[in-house]
């Protein structure tokens, strides 16, 4: 209520009356003070900063800090520190003044020493917020903060220790962001300075796994927080962390107690991201065979972490070896490695999940584009078969915890194996495609008793349609494999149409089937026209499905695919399509991310139907002029989010105008009567287009002379297109008052 009323300036005495509760003499009852502090905290968290005057903020902070005094009872003290946590982002002015800042820090630090555990937890959470908001001011307090946090991590109970670790993770995340943004000079290197002392403590925490929590997905405790923090440290400290962590790993990886084996394995996986491949190389070569054998560890948690660590090795190191270095995963090693991984697919779903992920990352590391062969080629068939079988097992045991996740992981592993497959295994990809088709059809025949069963089936069919899409995409990359698809075309399209029909009732258009149909157009080319009568109703439904905007977006993309595939054969549908597209563009309820794509697809249609697009020219150019006007205005916002969206919009506008210029180009150049009319209409838009392109060149939001490269190139290409089909374009451009478009030419050159 305060959020609404303060915004409307309709509750001016709210803050003063709350403050009265805190300052009343004799003091208000404890319950009132506690509730007041909670309310102040909520208000600070929710209300827009600009609605609270600096005086209000000062008074709130004073009241809150007074509520934290050691003389206060536990309940209001706790409410006070939580309120301070929520209000800390408002204390910018106070953090600028040294004595005020030090006072606030002192009060919070005292909170970390309170007798109440909840109070200590809240105080450390408050310190995290302070680190996040006032990192540059931390220097003077770092020694004390280090002492307090490490003591808590080592000696306090789990919940407090977890929050003390989180303080360091917050600092690490802040520093990582600075380093990623190239602001090295602003980084105070707190993590690098503390790492030598912090790491041993964190590694020790890794061994304090809470067995019960490992089965609870929402759990977050000391060992987990420490694992997360070690990963952050590795990304900041890079190479120097390797010799610091390796002794812990070697000392514990074969320990009797599983806690130590798991901790060592986790530590190994945690340092794969950050250090250079060269610094890890020897250790990884040495450790890989050990990890493979540990997939059979008697303890489930160790096996799970081992599979994850293997995935980390494959993701970060495998395939990134220095030039000339032997591959980390050698051909000789593959049979043993794959046998072990496949064997572990039969493990519990939690383990199998990471095994699938490891297989997926292994495949990505071998990605060879469209090479003739790959080290995985001899094993591909068996690997995919085993993954498929494993997925079936998980699917048939849905009650087993995490089986759903493992099933998806198995399918995605298959997908990445297909994506990265070499030419010598394409025949098998073709076989897989037919297997998937059969599976989809078999599922279509399964009677569905309930809404829940129908939704579950739609998800499964989505996964199969995804696999179908990936198979087709891979086959289409090679001309002969694409030809081999011809006998299956009707069956593929019939199947996709059935899936679309089945889901049309409740779940709208099935996005995965739609995406697969888009890929299918690439496989068929102009022959797709025979499927148009049955397929176009789904395109129409998808375009009108604004509630699921991503489905709508995918449908727009697929319509582009269809236009490219069938060219002029799309003409009979164009009246309706253009009217839906224009209605969507003008509708305030259509998600704004779809609108640029809708403009783009108008360009696709113009390219497909060429001169016939003249019929829509006036209506489309009118909308485009509005869009260009919007885009020009957006530059003034000088804000990065607006800039990002504007670049999407620009792409849409450029695609549309360029598609129209080229689609109608032939008629215009030949000067047919229709062509002459189109030329005049398009010529009338030239000033708007030139002003639009100049606004792209003059946009300094991303920095002087920095552009989105795709947009810059496309904008220049558009000017070229216009000059090539409109005689007035060249002179018009030369006389254009703003020369900012030339900046784009310079940039592209």
């Amino acid at each position, binding site marked *: 209520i305060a959020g609404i009323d303060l915004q409307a300036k309709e509750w001016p005495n709210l803050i003063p009356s709350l403050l009265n509760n805190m300052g009343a003499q004799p003091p208000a009852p404890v319950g009132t003070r506690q509730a007041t502090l909670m309310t102040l905290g909520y208000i600070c968290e929710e209300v827009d900063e600009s609605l609270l005057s600096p005086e209000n903020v000062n008074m709130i902070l004073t009241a809150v800090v007074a509520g934290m005094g050691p003389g206060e009872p536990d309940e209001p003290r706790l409410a006070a520190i939580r309120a301070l946590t929520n209000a800390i982002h408002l204390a910018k002015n106070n953090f600028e003044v040294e004595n005020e800042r030090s006072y606030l820090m002192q009060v919070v630090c005292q909170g970390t020493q309170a007798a109440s555990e909840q109070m200590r937890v809240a105080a450390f959470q408050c310190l995290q917020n302070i680190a996040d908001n006032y990192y540059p001011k931390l220097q003077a307090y770092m020694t004390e903060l280090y002492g307090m946090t490490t003591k808590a991590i080592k000696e306090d109970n789990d919940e407090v220790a977890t929050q003390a670790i989180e303080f360091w993770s917050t600092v690490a995340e802040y520093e990582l962001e600075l380093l990623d943004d190239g602001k090295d000079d602003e980084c105070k290197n707190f993590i690098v300075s503390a790492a030598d002392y912090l790491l041993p403590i964190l590694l020790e925490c890794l061994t304090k796994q809470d067995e019960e929590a490992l089965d609870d997905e929402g759990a977050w405790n000391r060992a987990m927080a420490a694992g997360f923090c070690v990963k952050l440290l590795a990304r900041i400290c890079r190479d120097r962390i390797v010799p610091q962590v390796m002794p812990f790993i070697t000392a514990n990886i074969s320990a009797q107690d599983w806690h130590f084996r798991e901790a060592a394995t986790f530590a190994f996986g945690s340092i794969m991201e950050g250090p250079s491949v060269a610094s890890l190389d020897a250790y990884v070569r040495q450790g890989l065979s050990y990890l493979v054998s540990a997939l059979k560890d008697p303890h489930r948690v160790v096996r799970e972490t081992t599979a994850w660590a293997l995935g980390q090795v494959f993701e970060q190191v495998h395939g990134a070896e220095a030039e000339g270095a032997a591959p980390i995963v050698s051909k000789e090693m593959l049979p043993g490695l794959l046998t072990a991984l496949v064997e572990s697919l039969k493990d519990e779903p939690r383990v199998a999940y990471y095994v699938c992920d490891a297989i997926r990352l292994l495949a990505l590391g071998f990605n060879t584009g469209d090479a003739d062969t790959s080290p995985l080629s001899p094993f591909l068939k068996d690997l995919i078969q085993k993954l498929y079988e494993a997925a079936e097992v998980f699917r048939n045991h849905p009650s087993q915890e995490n089986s759903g996740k493992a099933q998806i992981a198995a399918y995605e592993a298959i997908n990445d194996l297909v994506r990265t497959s070499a030419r010598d295994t394409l025949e098998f990809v073709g076989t897989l495609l037919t297997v998937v088709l059969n599976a989809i059809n078999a599922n279509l025949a399964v009677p569905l008793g309930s809404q829940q069963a129908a939704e579950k089936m739609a998800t499964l069919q989505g996964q199969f349609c995804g696999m179908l899409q990936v198979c087709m995409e891979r086959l289409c*990359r090679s001309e002969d494999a694409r030809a081999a698809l011809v006998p299956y075309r009707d069956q593929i399209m019939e199947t996709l149409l059935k899936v679309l029909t089945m889901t049309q009732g409740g779940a709208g258009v099935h996005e995965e089937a739609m995406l697969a149909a888009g890929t299918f157009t690439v496989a068929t080319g102009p022959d797709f026209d025979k499927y148009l009568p049955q397929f176009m109703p789904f395109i129409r439904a998808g375009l009108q499905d604004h509630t699921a905007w991503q489905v709508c977006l995918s449908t727009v993309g697929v319509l582009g695919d269809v236009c490219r*595939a069938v060219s002029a054969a799309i003409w009979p549908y164009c009246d309706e399509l253009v009217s839906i597209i224009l209605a969507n563009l003008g509708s305030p309820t259509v998600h704004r991310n779809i609108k640029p794509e809708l403009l783009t697809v108008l360009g696709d249609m113009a390219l497909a139907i060429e001169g016939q697009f003249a019929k829509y020219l006036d209506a489309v150019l009118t909308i485009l002029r509005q869009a260009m006007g919007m885009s020009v205005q957006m530059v003034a916002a000088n804000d990065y989010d607006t800039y990002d969206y504007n670049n999407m919009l620009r792409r849409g506008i450029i695609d549309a105008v360029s598609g129209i210029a080229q689609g109608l180009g032939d008629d215009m150049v030949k000067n047919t009567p229709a062509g002459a009319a189109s030329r005049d209409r398009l010529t009338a838009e030239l000033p708007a287009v030139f002003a639009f392109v100049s606004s792209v060149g003059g946009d300094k939001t991303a920095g002087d002379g920095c552009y989105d490269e795709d947009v810059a190139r496309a904008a220049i290409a558009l000017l070229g297109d216009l000059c090539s089909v409109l005689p007035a374009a060249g002179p018009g451009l030369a006389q254009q008052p703003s020369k900012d478009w030339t900046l784009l030419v310079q940039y592209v050159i």
Partner: protein
Amino acid sequence: MQPVPAGAERTVFRAIRDPYQGYQAKRRQDALQRQKVARLQSANRARTLVQEPGQEESESGLDVEVDE
């Protein structure tokens, strides 16, 4: 007022992110990428002033053929 611990969002299984949350998004992204390349090729084909065919096409690394 119970502030959500910063770590709560961090955990999937054991502090390891779940790459499959967006599995559908990946295919959507792949499709968008493929469409972009196909559009560029289609536009280039239509351009009468193409000077070096294939130069722009090689940028993406994808090799999607569209029948004419």
